C-alpha cells in the first residue's frame, strides 16, 4: 500500500507527522473540509476570488505599458552607461561596476517579465501593435534625455519603421499563435 505508514505502528506520532507528506491529497482535503465546516460562507467562484486578489498594478495593459516603457528606458540607460562609464579595454575593473549598464540590463529583464505577464491575457495582435510604438518612444527619449538632435529625415525614418512594425504585427501574431 502506497501512502500508508506502518512504522513503527500507525498511531505513532512520527507516522502522523509524515502522513501529510505521504498522501497530501487526503491531508489537504481534510484541511479544506475543516475550513468549510468552521465558516459557513458560500464558496465564491475561483475567478471572482482571483479578481479580488489582483492589485491594480497587475492589470495586464498596465504591465504591457510598463514593459514598453522599460524597453525604451533600458536603451537610454545603456547609452548613458556606454558614454559615461565604459572604458576601452573591456576587462577594465571599473566596467564591471558601471551602474548605468546594470540598470539597463535590469530594465531589459523587468520588461521581459512584464511582457510575458501581459501576454497571458492581452491578445497578441494588440500587444505587438503597441510594441511598435517602441521605436517612437526611443526616439523621443533620446531627444529628451540624451539631447540628441534628430533631423526631420530621421523622424520620417523612425515613423516608417514604426508603421512597418505595426504592419508586421498581424502576421507575427498569427505565427506565434501557431506555436
Amino acid at each position, binding site marked *: 500500500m502506497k501512502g500508508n505508514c506502518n512504522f513503527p505502528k500507525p498511531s505513532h506520532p512520527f507516522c502522523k507527522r509524515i502522513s501529510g507528506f505521504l498522501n497530501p491529497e487526503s491531508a489537504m482535503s481534510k484541511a479544506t473540509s475543516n475550513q468549510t465546516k468552521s465558516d459557513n460562507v458560500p464558496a465564491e467562484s475561483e475567478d471572482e476570488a482571483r479578481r479580488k486578489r489582483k492589485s491594480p498594478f497587475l492589470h495586464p495593459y498596465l504591465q504591457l505599458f510598463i514593459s514598453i516603457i522599460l524597453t525604451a528606458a533600458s536603451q*537610454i540607460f*545603456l547609452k548613458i552607461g*556606454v558614454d559615461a562609464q565604459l572604458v576601452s579595454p573591456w576587462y577594465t575593473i571599473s566596467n564591471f561596476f558601471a551602474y548605468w549598464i546594470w540598470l539597463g540590463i535590469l530594465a531589459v529583464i523587468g520588461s521581459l517579465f512584464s511582457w510575458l505577464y501581459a501576454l497571458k491575457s492581452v491578445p497578441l495582435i494588440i500587444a505587438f501593435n503597441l510594441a511598435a510604438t517602441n521605436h517612437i518612444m526611443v526616439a523621443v527619449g533620446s531627444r529628451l534625455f540624451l539631447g*540628441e538632435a534628430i533631423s526631420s529625415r530621421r523622424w*520620417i*525614418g523612425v515613423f*516608417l519603421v514604426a*508603421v512597418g512594425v505595426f504592419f*508586421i504585427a498581424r*502576421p507575427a501574431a498569427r505565427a506565434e499563435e501557431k506555436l
Partner: protein
Amino acid sequence: MADHSKSSASRRKLDLAGGVLVMTVSFFTWLSLLHRFDLSYLYPFEGLDRVLLAFAAWLILKEKMSRDLWIGLILICLGTAFVAGS
C-alpha cells in the same frame, strides 16, 4: 524510447545554451555600436531583425509571406534607409 527523450532533452539544453551565447554576443556588439553612434540613429536598425527573421522563415521554413508582411518589410527597409541617410 528513454534514450530518445534523453537525447532530445540534451539537444534542447544545447539549443538554449546556443541562444544565450548568441544573445550575449549581440548584447556586447550592441554596446560597442552604441559607443559609436547616437541612439536615435541606431535604434531603427533594430527593426531590421524582423526583416531577417521573415526572410529566414520564408527561405528556410518555407513559410508563406502575406501581403501585410511584405508591406511591413518594405516600410521598415525604407525607414531604415531614411535614418541611415540622416
